């Protein structure tokens, strides 16, 4: 029997599986942070995490943090440098994988977190933060999205974090993890790798504002194990990030 779990929890597990042992990971907050901690606790014990504010950790913070600058994320870090220092390492190509969230995405993996008129009226979003830098400079990127038609657009209003484009020097979107499934972006189209248990190919296509590649016999995302759930719930005891519904990025 498999414990019940939220889609957020399943996404954390999927994010963790994108991290290989020994890799240098540009960690975001929220789900990717939990994914990094889960990967460290399971299959990637020697992975190292960089935060855009300059913090470098080889183990997650001992207490729950709301932002990467919170004191528990600095206490016990192996290094606390400046923003430009870790960005320089990122630009050097020393970062294997980075995580980014977005409000809108297109088939090339371009992310918009700046402004949109998709819903008719102009909506201002917070902006890039480090997203554009991770998208531009990491060895590969893993994108995390709420899977809704209005967010999956043929062309995003504003390219905050560049996806695949001619002349890209390095990296680009590799994987997209959504509330409905896990998708491969490496080919410049959105191809379903797995859909979360209970999600049909038709539902996935309906929830996407453009055509995706999804095999009728596409496998189901492997659910979290008891241990994986145990870790996630100890790291996010109140479900601040992993409870329903997902907080919008």
């Amino acid at each position, binding site marked *: 029997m498999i414990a019940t779990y939220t889609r957020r929890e399943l996404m954390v597990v999927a994010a963790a599986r994108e991290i290989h042992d020994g890799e240098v990971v540009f960690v975001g907050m929220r789900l990717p942070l939990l994914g990094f901690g889960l990967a460290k606790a399971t299959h990637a014990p020697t992975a190292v995490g960089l935060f855009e504010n300059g913090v470098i950790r080889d183990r997650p913070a001992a207490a729950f943090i709301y*932002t990467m600058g919170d004191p528990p994320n600095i206490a016990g870090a192996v290094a606390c440098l400046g923003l430009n220092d870790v960005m320089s390492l990122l630009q050097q190509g020393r970062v294997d994988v980075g995580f980014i969230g977005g409000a809108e995405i297109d088939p090339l993996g371009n992310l918009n977190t700046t402004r949109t008129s998709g819903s008719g009226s102009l909506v201002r979003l917070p*902006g890039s933060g480090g997203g*554009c830098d991770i998208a531009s400079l990491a060895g590969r990127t893993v994108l995390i999205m709420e899977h809704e038609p209005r967010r999956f657009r043929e062309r995003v209003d504003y390219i905050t974090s560049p996806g695949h484009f001619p002349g890209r020097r390095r990296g680009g979107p590799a994987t997209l993890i959504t509330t409905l499934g896990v998708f491969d972006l490496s080919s410049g189209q959105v191809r379903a790798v797995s859909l979360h248990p209970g999600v049909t190919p038709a539902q996935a296509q309906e929830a996407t504002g453009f055509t995706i590649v999804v095999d009728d016999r596409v496998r189901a995302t492997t659910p979290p194990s008891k241990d994986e759930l145990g870790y996630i719930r100890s790291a996010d005891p109140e479900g601040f990030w992993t409870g329903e519904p997902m907080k919008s990025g």
Partner: protein
Amino acid sequence: MHEVIRQRRRDLTLIGPISDMAFDQLIAAGTVAKVIAAWVGNVAGGSGYGFRRAYEQGQPRRIVMEDHSNFTVGLALKAAAMGLPYLPTFTGLGGDIVRGHPRIRPVDDPFGGPGLLAVGALKPDVAIIHVQRADASGNAHLWGNLGLTVEAAYAARRTIVVCEEIVPDEVIRSDPNRTVIPGFLVSAVVEEPGGALPSSVQGYWRRDFETFLSYHRLSKTVEGFESWLREWVLDLRDRPAYLRHMGDAALEPLRVTDRRLAAAANFAP
């Protein structure tokens, strides 16, 4: 920050990579004409409603937004800190942030490599820096989260150091590698314990998350923001009054009382 609002400053330009709710308050209070930043919102909750009202509806006034990534803000300040007109970078290529950007232009690699972007220097008139301790000359010890603090202090025409404690200069001299801002760059030193709240200060204050959440809730509406502004800014004379208004019950849990000291470093010659 709140004093800036109390003084009814106008037409300010705000600069920062990831802004905290202070930006949202300054914007919603109508003190801001322009924002140069990579991310404006509430680090706890997401959207900054004051920022959105100003940007989307021009309430209480229109603002000009110069969008950046964290790294381009960092490079713009670093260029000024280095006394250079620009620094080159590969970040942002292929995206819209750098397209038609007033401070970012394409530039060739003089050694024949692929093209880059030049991020123009950004020289603030004033940098306000909160540190743990400084001496009377402004030599400042800062530890924990650094972000772009040092770049901002080097780049600015005037740097104001706000510290938890003004300490004898021997304390600073005991660890010159901890001095991230040399005093001769500093125009003024202010001893203001808790001056960074609701943000955290390593070893002194935890993040006041409740205030982030309640501000986020209230600032959803103009009325909510106005009442918040009255209660927490306009009706309070200064920072000590703010801390008194919080009350010990709210303040004490935020005060760091236990000790996790840095391992000894011997500077004996």
